[in-house]
């Protein structure tokens, strides 16, 4: 039986999420044994035009060309999995979605007219059908391997979408909200990082985006009552997952300060 073909595509991103695949040192050989890496420019110059059994897509859609290219990728992929905050929520570059893009360009580039980009940065799922979204900035190596294993063996990935607090308690971290009064996004943030920041006595930054039932307003209301400033709440919800619906809406409820 021919090995299933894997492809890895990049859109607007820092590449960190696709590099997670190369970071799977110990498992990489087992992976290469089971699948044929047909297209992965970060790792090999070999270009196989597809079709692919599984395509991993990192990055967001930021140009008109991207819109076309992701449709082609979709057409050549049996299964398409988006990986990382850029691909699943537009990434940090989606901060421009709520601002005047032309004005931002003029601050950053000496010759803004040379830049040919859309006014928004959007998730892949807004453009084509996606089979599974793997969250995180960056994604977790374990979860990536789990998703690939699941697709290889035709089962559902064991990836939870509940709040980060579960993993935080399972790790035995002392809650920073309760013991230090630090605002933490753990209660509304999707599982996946293993509660990394609370483990270092920091509040969660929300790198994995909203959980499946995020009570963002309830959380903000509480932190504001405890002395947080509106601008602080706005910034907390305006990072790598700024364009994920629940975070975007919550950020829009607070002014700058």
């Amino acid at each position, binding site marked *: 039986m021919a090995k299933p073909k894997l492809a890895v595509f990049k859109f607007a991103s820092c590449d960190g999420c696709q590099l997670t695949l190369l970071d799977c040192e110990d*498992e990489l050989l*087992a*992976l290469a*044994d*089971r699948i044929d890496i047909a297209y992965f420019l970060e790792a090999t110059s070999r270009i196989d035009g597809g079709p692919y059994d599984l395509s991993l897509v990192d990055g967001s859609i930021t140009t008109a060309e991207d819109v076309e290219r992701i449709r082609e990728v979709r057409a050549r992929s049996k299964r398409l999995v988006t990986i990382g905050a850029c691909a699943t929520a537009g990434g940090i570059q989606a901060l421009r979605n709520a601002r005047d893009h032309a004005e931002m360009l003029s601050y950053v580039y000496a010759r803004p007219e040379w830049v040919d980009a859309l006014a928004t940065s959007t998730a892949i799922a807004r453009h084509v059908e996606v089979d599974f979204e793997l969250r995180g900035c960056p994604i977790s190596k374990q979860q990536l*391997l*789990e998703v*690939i*294993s*699941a697709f*290889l*063996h035709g*089962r559902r990935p*064991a990836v*939870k*979408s*509940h*709040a980060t*607090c*579960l993993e935080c*308690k*399972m*790790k*035995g*971290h*002392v*809650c920073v*909200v*309760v*013991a*230090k*009064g630090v605002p*933490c996004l*753990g*209660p*509304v943030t999707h599982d996946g990082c293993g509660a990394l920041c609370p483990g270092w*006595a920091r509040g969660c930054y929300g790198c994995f985006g909203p*959980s*499946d*039932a995020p*009570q963002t307003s*309830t*959380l903000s209301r*509480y932190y504001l009552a405890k002395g947080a400033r509106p601008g602080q709440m706005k910034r907390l919800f305006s990072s790598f997952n700024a364009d994920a619906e629940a975070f975007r809406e919550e950020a829009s409820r607070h002014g700058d300060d």
Partner: protein
Amino acid sequence: MQASAGGRMRIDVNGLDVLLRALADEGHELVGPRVQDGAIVLGPIRGVEDLPRGVGDEQTPGRYRLRARGDDALFGYAVPQHSFKKELLLPRVTLVRIRRGKTGAVVEAPPRPDRKVAFVGMRACEIAAVEVQDRVLRDGPWMDADYAARREQVFVLAVQCGAPSGTCFCVSMGTGPKAEAGFDLALTELLAPEHAFVVEVGTEAGRRILARVPRREATAEEEEAAARVVCDAAARMGRTMDTTNIRDLMMSNLEHPRWEDVAERCLGCANCTLACPTCFCTDVEDTTDLSGDEATRTRRWDSCFTFDFAYLHGGGVRPSLRGRYRQWLTHKVATWHDQFGTSGCVGCGRCITWCPVGIDITEEVAAIRATSATAERGG
């Protein structure tokens, strides 16, 4: 000085250290209180030097802070975030591994846990909580083999409570502050006139280990002072819960507007259930490795607060947060009685302190009672 009538022993701080080392010497891992990350946590300890000397805690809904007590108390705090549950019902445990063998599937049950452990500083409410879990996980019709095996090898070195916090209500739940049974040895810490411990012996194993420790009989004064410690603790409960007819009260108020109200404040973050020493809900996760030659089934902590916990064909049966909070509270204090013959709450206050937004179970029950649709208002 008069010898005590109860024949209790008295050891000093050095004696406690000898006791701890004797337990270790007999092959027990010691799990007890120590300071870590601005809190008292239960973790591995070696001897008296690791105990939180002079450290107390302040606990109110959604808030926990350490405080300097200004004395040398070694057990002068209330209960930590995590109970001993994490040592018996592990956050994650492998249930079975199945490998593809030459002639078929090879099923590999994980080795039975073999770990002698001493729980140091266990409080009455924590003993009560373990007994609640015993009924569910060990003595009921569906025994959890991993839990039962771990439970068998526990030595309980209890400490009678002298420092309840602002969120404690064990008196209301009838579980403390004095542990009457369920321990091998129970200490009561006395700070004056000398720093010492009055020791109660609960089991033969306790008696044997105590024989290795320098001790003398406690005096009548020391026994009295020990009795006063728990008596004072009972008078300093931070909270109360009226449990009169509580089962019927809850079950006849399933449509009470308070459920809507609490859903407006609750995050559904599950912290209450994970910190609770009696909550036992878990999920089972099946995974395969990349090669597909090995499959693993893992049991992991879960909670009735997660969106997909009650996922059945087609969706979750409790999609609203109102429904999930109501499920938790009504199970804890009402239907637990139907299922297991006791309350699921021992009054330890963890769910109140460690709720990031400070939702207070005693306040929720009181609010429902105050405006109950039926006559279950109680006394």
